[in-house]
């Protein structure tokens, strides 16, 4: 969306530089009622600084799309606990210590849309690929199918699932250059590249900054044209899980 905004003066030429100076600047303009896609899986590749920034920023009545309804009292869980989320779209509403969601849900203060995890990923991918809806056998004949169009295709019962178009995506990368080309680290990739393509405004926090040309072209997972704003947050390693 922001090709023009991202171009800054550099001598007498323009150059693309999507880096902003702060998380607050990165989140500027997110409106009440926005559909916000939040990357990360099991806290790995989760854009924690951006989620915390969104709590500060104040937008409310949000629809949040994330793999879970949050865990413990931090991140997405805290956003829900602060009463800022009117609807959560996720594959796991129950995960260890999802206390804040359960409290808010029990009060009837949040709408829950349960989506099988692969359907969630594919609905996001579809949005990014300009596919408004698709038929899938996943969930056919189950509660997930209730209220959805179903059709037998190639001998298999399928249900119609719609793309999830985000207003905003919040993602985390391992390395980014000023064009917004992104590389992810190990299992930190997860939903991030798919969400980067599914939103009108993609905001990325990156652990490291690379010079343009430094990232080997074959290793770039998300091409920069899918990213609108970048902020450097050296967040460090995700927490180690003690089980």
């Amino acid at each position: 969306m922001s090709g023009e905004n991202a171009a800054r003066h550099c001598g007498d030429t323009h150059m693309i530089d999507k880096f902003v100076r702060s998380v607050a600047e990165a989140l500027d303009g997110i409106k009440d009622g926005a559909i916000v896609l939040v990357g990360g899986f099991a806290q790995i590749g989760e854009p924690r600084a951006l989620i915390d920034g969104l709590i500060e920023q104040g937008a409310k009545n949000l629809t949040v799309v994330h793999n879970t309804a949050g865990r413990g009292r931090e991140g997405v869980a805290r956003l829900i606990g602060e009463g800022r989320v009117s609807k959560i779209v996720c594959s796991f509403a129950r995960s260890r210590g999802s206390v804040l969601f359960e409290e808010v849900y029990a009060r009837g203060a949040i709408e829950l849309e349960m989506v099988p995890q692969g359907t969630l990923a594919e609905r996001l991918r579809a949005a990014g690929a300009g596919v408004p809806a698709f038929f899938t056998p996943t969930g056919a004949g189950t509660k997930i199918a209730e209220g959805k169009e179903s059709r037998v295709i190639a001998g298999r019962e399928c249900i119609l699932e719609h793309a999830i178009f985000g207003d905003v995506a919040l993602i985390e990368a391992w390395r980014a250059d000023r064009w917004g080309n992104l590389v992810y680290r190990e299992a930190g990739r997860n939903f991030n590249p798919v969400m980067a393509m599914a939103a009108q405004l993609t905001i990325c926090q990156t652990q490291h900054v690379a010079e343009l040309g430094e990232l080997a072209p074959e290793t770039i997972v998300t091409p920069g044209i899918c990213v609108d704003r970048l902020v450097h947050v050296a967040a460090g390693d995700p927490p180690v899980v003690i089980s």
Partner: protein
Amino acid sequence: MPNWKPLTREELAARVARDIPEGWSVNLGIGIPTLIANYVPHEREVIFHSENGIVGMGPAPTPEKLDPWLVNASRQHVTLRTGGSYFHHADSFALVRGGHLDLCVLGAFQVAENGDIANWARSDDEAAPAIGGAMDLAAGARRIWAVMEHSTRGGEHRLLHRCTYPLTAKGVTRRVFTELCVLDVTERGFVLIDKVEGLGLDELQARTGAAIRSV
């Protein structure tokens, strides 16, 4: 005292592992299925997939090799075998939904003799349900095996004529492993493949909510 012993969780995981041949690509669900990888010998090249974007997943790391950036879908720290790869969530589930996995082993609350499987909710109005990737795996993998306790703690049947809990998928289960037996799900219903030594067929049938045929 009965003259037979049910399998422990570990023995059950090892029993399933015995049936997984070299070369298969396999996803292991949450719970007992996750243990199965521990019983596939390293030299048998089975390629494990994890929903969060890993093919070629290896066992849990030693403490000094622990990598905070690498967990499986059950959020346990794992390793990557030589030859392994990473990809994003939509590609990961395209591997599942596109029929690229030879096998998925799922935990289950209930399995019916028509292959229906229920593994995500115990009632229609569960407060905070957890579907995760189970419906995609159940619908997409080439084979579905279920690993489960034969009965509930209260002694109610979990292997049934028809499931009573909300379904994960219809008609997909091919084989069931419990602490008592291994059953194939066929057009004729449950067929006995294996049972613990000393357990009579009548005793097994009494603990099962659908007919078991012995070939």
